Structure formats: structure tokens, C-alpha cells
């Protein structure tokens, strides 16, 4: 722990704290349809898109119509991305002449990018042509992120409107998130990344011939444009197989800092947007505080674990799977951030992290990706936990639970439980199946508890829509391609459905003024309760499985045992 490490950490937190209200205010203006600083430039394009698509942006939707539009758009996205991959060898912009992608892998990848998971059972540089990367994957990087933000905004409208029937217009939310927020930020970030050394070209791969060395094929492509949105949209799907560890995706420590900041920027900003929508900024800051506390705790444990000498290999510094330019601190800061937010980009191999640092990454996935979380998805997941917390607090003090002046009733609690438990069910059933049949463990890259962790992490990553991996396990086979595709799909839409249902029912409720008996949903007490509920749900569900993986590995590794 050098002083220099602390400077970087405080700089990161300081900048994050500073941009949260700025981005938050901007997003609030965008989603309420008010004029903002980009209106003059982007407004005409936005209106042109509505006109060409036949959309009336002011026409409000009930929650069922909103959900229908969202599902239609996402299913179509899967179909188009699947088709692009299945036919890429006949399409233009494929200078390396990569063949068509096999069906199981193509389906997995299509579901993966549409659900904002960006799990990758392939290496981009040896599988996908430039057209699929940009017109397929880059597009879903944008619109899956925009979908997540749209759901959050719809939920926030539902929670804050009084006796309303509608929760907004999906098309308007989707287009605004893409055009005003994601596209401009991505443009700026892509240019910064090119400056730092990320390639951006349509030239074919280049063969380099060192004077007395071995010929090296240098992969290129429109990389920077994809990496920018990959980070900002908490997508995480690398252009290259080694993701942000690859020097072409993350060439310098500064590019690394920007990439880390980009992951948390929008999820953090949305807490402030939420505060503005509820007309009580403390609502946003309380949630921000709960998220920050969980993030800092996870990072502290990971960092400490990575600095312990390894009793098995005798290494003082755990540099396996890490890059010299980042070192240990920037690698575990990245691993904590990317698993808190459902990003899944990696700048070091999570499979080679120490059991506790890898365990924290896994736990972050298991807690439901609510520690800042995916863009929109983290905040709506957190609001599900808020509803549960309010309900539990109501039970404890013996009052009917209320949130923002509205009664929380059986209907909302039921849907909240569905949303909170859907990923848990996918993870535990998937893991149990993987453990029981040969196909599950046939391709493991490690033995003993670490091999178990590889399977556990795969299902957790898919169901939590994260996309990072303990990548030693070979997942490009029918078993993992299909089972993980199912988990990714349910992990996304079995939450979005209930969340929109809650939005719809809450929108219709009346607001009662707060009374002296109202349980406040701001401040330290509530933040503490919220954190406790998140940890208890996560721990009760997964503690036995965690014991078999990272916990036992940590204990026996300390005793010098290897596998």
C-alpha cells in the first residue's frame, strides 16, 4: 500500500462524487423531455427518428404496453444479432474472412449482448468480423444499456406519480438514453482512448516482421468506438478475448482510470436523478451511500487479500493474470468496480485472483448487481431491495409499510420477491446441474474448490448479467452455451417484468402525507437496514455454496495446500 495508491483511490472517489450530481441533473432533464445543453444539436435527429419510426413520444404507455414494447424490441435484437453472426462470411467488412459463427455460440452471444451481460464464449479477434462487431455488438452495447436506463426511469415515474395510469413512453426513453446520454459520452471517451493508444481503423490485420524475431499478426479494427460504450453502458464485452487486460483495449494507466470511472459514472449519476425525481435528493444520496459502503468494503477485503504472500507459490506479489502497467491495486480496484456494476470488463484475470478477492467478485454478482450496478439495472435492482426493506421495517415496527407516501402491499412485495429471487434460482439450479453431469465439469481449468468456483462464477455472472468469468473453464460448448443463455435471459427479463409491474401498480396509488409514525427512507438508519437486507438475502441464499468454493480455498491455501 504505497501513498501513491491512496492518491489514486481518493482521486477516483472524488471525481465520482463530483460527477454524480452533474450527470444526475443532466439525465433528469433528458428523461423529463426538457431542453438540455445538447438539445440544439441532437433534438433534430431525435425528432427525425420518431418521425421515421412512426412514434409519438408524448403518448404515455401503461406498464403492460411499456413492457410489451421493451420485450418486442429486445427479442428482435436477439434475432438480428443471431442472424448477423450466422451469415457473417457472406457479409461485407470481414477482412480476415472469419467463417459463420456456429449456432449455439451465436445464440449465447446474441442473448448475452442484448441482456447487457456480454458474457463471451469466444475471442473477438479470432471469431468476429468488423461488421458484426460494430453493427451488431456495438449497437446492442448502446441499446441494452438504454433499455436498462429506461426501465429505471419508468419505475421512478411509477413510484413518484400520483394516481396515474401510465409510466412513460418506452421508445422515447430508449432513444433519449441513446442519443443524449450514451452516444455523446461514448464519442468523447472513444477519442480519449484513441489518444491513449486504442486502435480505430477498418484496415485488415497487419503482419509485423521483426528483423530477427517471429512474425506477429497484429489484430486491428474499430476498437475504441466499442470499448467506450462497453465501459459506459456497463456492458463489458471486450473487442478482444482478454478484454481490458489487452493493451489494445486499455493501453495505459490513464485509459484504465477513465475506464473505471466510466463504469460507475452513469449508475452513480442515476441515484441523483432518482433523488430529483422523488423531489427529495436525500432519497438518492441514501442509496448512493449504501452502494458506496458496500463497494468500499468489498474493495478493502480484495486489496488486503491480494497483498498477502502466497503460501503455495511463495510469491510476495500476486501478478499472475495481471498487467505490469496496472499492478495489484489498479487490478483489484477494477475487479471490484466491474463486479459491483454489472459491467464484466476485466483488466486482470479473475481466475487468478486470490480466493478472497475472487470471492468478493463472486459475492458482488450474487448480491444482485446493486452496488451501483448496471446502468439503470443496478438502481432498479436496488429499489426492489428498498421495497423489501420498507416491508421488513414495517413488519418490525408493526405499521403498514409505506414508501414515498404510498402503501406497499402484497402485490408489490410479491413481485419484489420474484425479482430478488429469480437470479438466485437460476444460479443455484444451474450450478447443481453443472456439478451433477459430466459436461459441467469436463472443461474446468482448475481442480479442487477453485474448479467449483469456476462453475459457480459462470452461472452467477450469467444470471446477474455481469459477463466476467473465471475464464479457465471452457464454455464454448453446448452445455454452457445453452444453459448460460437461459440464465442470462431470465436474469434480465424475470427482473424487468416484475419491476415494470411494480411501477404500474405504484403509479396508480394515492399519496398520503408523512405522519410522525412514517418510517423515514433516508439517512443512516435506513441505509444501514438496506445494506443488512441485501447482505442477509445474499448470505442466506449462497453461504453454503460459497463455503465450498472461495472460503475453503482460502483456508487450505493458507495452509500451503495446492490442487
Amino acid at each position, binding site marked *: 500500500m504505497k501513498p501513491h495508491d491512496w492518491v489514486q483511490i481518493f482521486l477516483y472517489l472524488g471525481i465520482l462524487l463530483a460527477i454524480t450530481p452533474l450527470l444526475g441533473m443532466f439525465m433528469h432533464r433528458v428523461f423529463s423531455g426538457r431542453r438540455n445543453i445538447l438539445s440544439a444539436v441532437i433534438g433534430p435527429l431525435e425528432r427525425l*427518428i420518431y418521425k421515421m419510426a412512426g412514434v409519438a413520444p408524448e403518448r404515455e404507455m401503461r406498464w403492460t404496453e411499456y413492457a410489451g414494447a421493451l420485450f418486442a424490441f429486445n427479442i428482435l435484437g436477439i434475432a438480428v444479432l443471431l442472424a448477423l453472426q450466422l451469415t457473417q462470411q457472406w457479409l461485407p467488412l470481414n477482412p480476415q474472412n472469419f467463417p459463420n459463427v456456429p449456432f449455439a455460440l451465436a445464440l449465447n452471444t446474441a442473448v448475452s449482448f442484448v441482456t447487457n451481460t456480454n458474457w463471451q464464449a469466444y475471442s473477438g479477434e479470432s471469431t468476429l468480423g468488423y461488421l458484426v462487431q460494430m453493427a451488431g455488438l456495438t449497437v446492442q452495447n448502446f441499446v441494452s444499456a438504454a433499455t436498462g436506463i429506461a426501465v429505471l426511469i419508468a419505475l421512478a415515474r411509477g413510484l413518484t406519480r400520483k394516481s396515474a395510469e401510465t409510466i412513460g413512453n418506452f421508445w422515447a426513453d430508449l432513444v433519449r438514453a441513446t442519443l443524449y446520454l450514451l452516444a455523446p459520452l461514448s464519442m468523447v471517451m472513444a477519442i480519449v482512448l484513441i489518444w491513449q493508444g486504442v486502435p480505430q481503423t477498418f484496415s485488415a490485420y497487419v503482419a509485423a516482421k521483426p528483423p530477427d524475431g517471429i512474425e*506477429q499478426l497484429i489484430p486491428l479494427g474499430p476498437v475504441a468506438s466499442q470499448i467506450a460504450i462497453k465501459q459506459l453502458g456497463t456492458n463489458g464485452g471486450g473487442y*478482444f478475448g482478454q478484454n481490458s487486460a489487452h493493451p489494445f483495449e486499455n493501453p495505459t494507466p490513464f485509459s484504465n482510470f477513465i475506464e473505471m470511472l466510466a463504469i460507475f459514472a452513469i449508475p452513480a449519476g442515476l441515484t441523483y436523478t432518482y433523488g430529483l425525481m422523488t423531489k427529495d435528493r436525500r432519497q438518492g444520496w441514501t442509496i448512493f451511500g449504501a452502494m458506496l459502503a458496500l463497494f468500499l468494503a468489498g474493495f478493502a477485503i480484495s486489496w488486503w487479500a491480494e497483498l498477502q504472500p502466497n503460501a503455495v507459490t511463495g510469491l510476495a506479489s500476486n501478478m499472475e493474470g495481471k498487467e505490469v502497467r496496472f499492478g495489484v491495486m489498479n487490478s483489484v480496484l477494477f475487479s471490484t468496480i466491474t463486479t459491483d456494476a454489472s459491467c464484466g470488463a476485466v483488466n486482470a484475470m479473475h481466475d487468478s485472483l486470490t480466493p478472497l478477492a475472487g470471492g468478493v467478485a463472486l459475492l458482488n454478482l450474487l448480491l444482485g448487481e446493486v452496488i451501483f450496478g448496471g446502468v439503470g439495472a443496478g438502481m432498479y435492482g436496488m429499489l426492489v431491495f428498498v421495497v423489501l426493506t420498507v416491508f421488513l421495517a414495517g413488519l418490525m415496527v408493526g405499521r403498514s409499510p409505506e414508501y414515498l407516501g404510498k402503501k406497499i402491499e402484497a402485490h408489490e412485495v410479491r413481485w419484489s420477491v420474484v425479482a430478488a429471487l429469480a437470479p438466485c434460482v437460476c444460479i443455484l439450479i444451474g450450478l447443481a446441474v453443472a456439478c451433477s453431469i459430466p459436461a459441467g465439469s469436463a472443461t474446468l481449468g482448475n481442480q479442487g474448490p477453485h474448479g467449483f468456483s469456476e462453475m459457480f462464477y459462470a452461472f452467477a455472472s450469467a444470471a446477474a448479467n455481469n459477463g466476467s468469468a473465471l475464464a479457465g473453464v471452457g464454455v464454448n460448448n453446448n452445455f454452457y452455451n445453452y444453459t448460460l443463455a437461459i440464465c442470462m435471459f431470465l436474469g434480465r427479463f424475470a427482473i424487468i417484468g416484475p419491476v415494470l409491474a411494480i411501477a404500474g401498480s405504484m403509479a396508480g396509488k394515492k399519496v398520503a402525507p408523512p405522519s410522525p409514525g412514517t418510517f423515514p427512507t433516508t439517512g443512516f438508519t435506513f441505509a444501514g437496514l438496506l445494506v443488512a437486507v441485501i447482505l442477509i438475502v445474499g448470505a442466506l441464499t449462497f453461504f453454503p455454496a460459497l463455503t465450498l468454493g472461495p472460503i475453503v480455498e482460502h483456508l487450505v491455501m493458507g495452509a500451503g495446500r495446492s490442487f
Partner: protein
Amino acid sequence: MKTFLVSLRILALLTFVTGIAYPLVITAIGRAAFPHASMGSLIKQDGQIIGSELLAQKTEDPLYFRPRPSAADYSTVPSGASNLGPASNTLKKAIEERRTVPEVPSDLLTTSGSGLDPHITPEAARYEAARVAAARHLPVEPLIALVDQFVEGPQFGLFGEARVNVLKLNLALSHGASAGH
């Protein structure tokens, strides 16, 4: 049906904006503003592309500095890592084989995340300088001095770790050597 048609139109329009216009605009800006970086930071010698500043190359010649070990043997298409856990037998054995003497720096004992890490730590570069000097029948001091010239501190004095780019160092070494002959 109407919802489906609207979906189709919105997807087509957003594909045009984010999947075609956006990468093209970024490519044009990149080419104009950062021609070297946007093309992969290629290094040319006598008109011939010999590598990229950002990607390690397999180097077996004892007369040169070597990059960190690579689990994928410096493959670029695809790149790869060991993905071995910290208590793995395979990792333990690999590290024992690389640890020919007790003082090998840990970045030279371990493989990187990309398999293409272009850097080694300054300690590793100074450690390798002794081997390179012996192979070249040179005193070690000028090599240490060369390494020190190539140590990059934290970026902007703030970010990341001190490091040495192996390919750049080797190029300087080969220029120096040919100038000396």
C-alpha cells in the same frame, strides 16, 4: 404487429446511428488527430512494420531483454492467459521452473492477463540487464543506464506503476549495438 414494426424501425435507425455513423465518425477523427495510435501504434524500421509498441513479442535471443512469460506463447489471434488459481499445482510448478535463482522478480515468474504485456517492472529490467550484459560480453553498468533511460514513471505522475517497455528498450539496444560495430 404495430409494436413489432416500430421495433424494427427503431432498431434499424439506432443501428445506423450507433453501429455505422458513430464508428465511422470516430474513425475519421482518430485518423486525423491520432494517426499513429489509431493504427495500432505500429513501429516501422526501414519501411517494414516490425511490431506494435503496445504488444509484447516473443524474444528468445539471449542478446535481448525478454518480456514477461506468456501463457498463450505471445499469440495475438487469439490472445490468452493462464487462468490458473493461486493454489494451482500447475501454477506452482510453472513458477518453480521459472525461478532459476531465488531473486527473480515476481513479474517475470508470472504470466500476464493479456499474454501480451509489453512491460516489465524496472526491477525486472535491471535484473535482466545482468543476463544481457553477460551474453553480450559487456559490463552491466551501461545496460543499467540504458534501462534507467527507459523507465516510465506513473503516468502524469499519478496513474499506474513504473514500467519499462521491452520492445522499445530492445530497439534502442539493437541501434546502439549496430552503431557500436
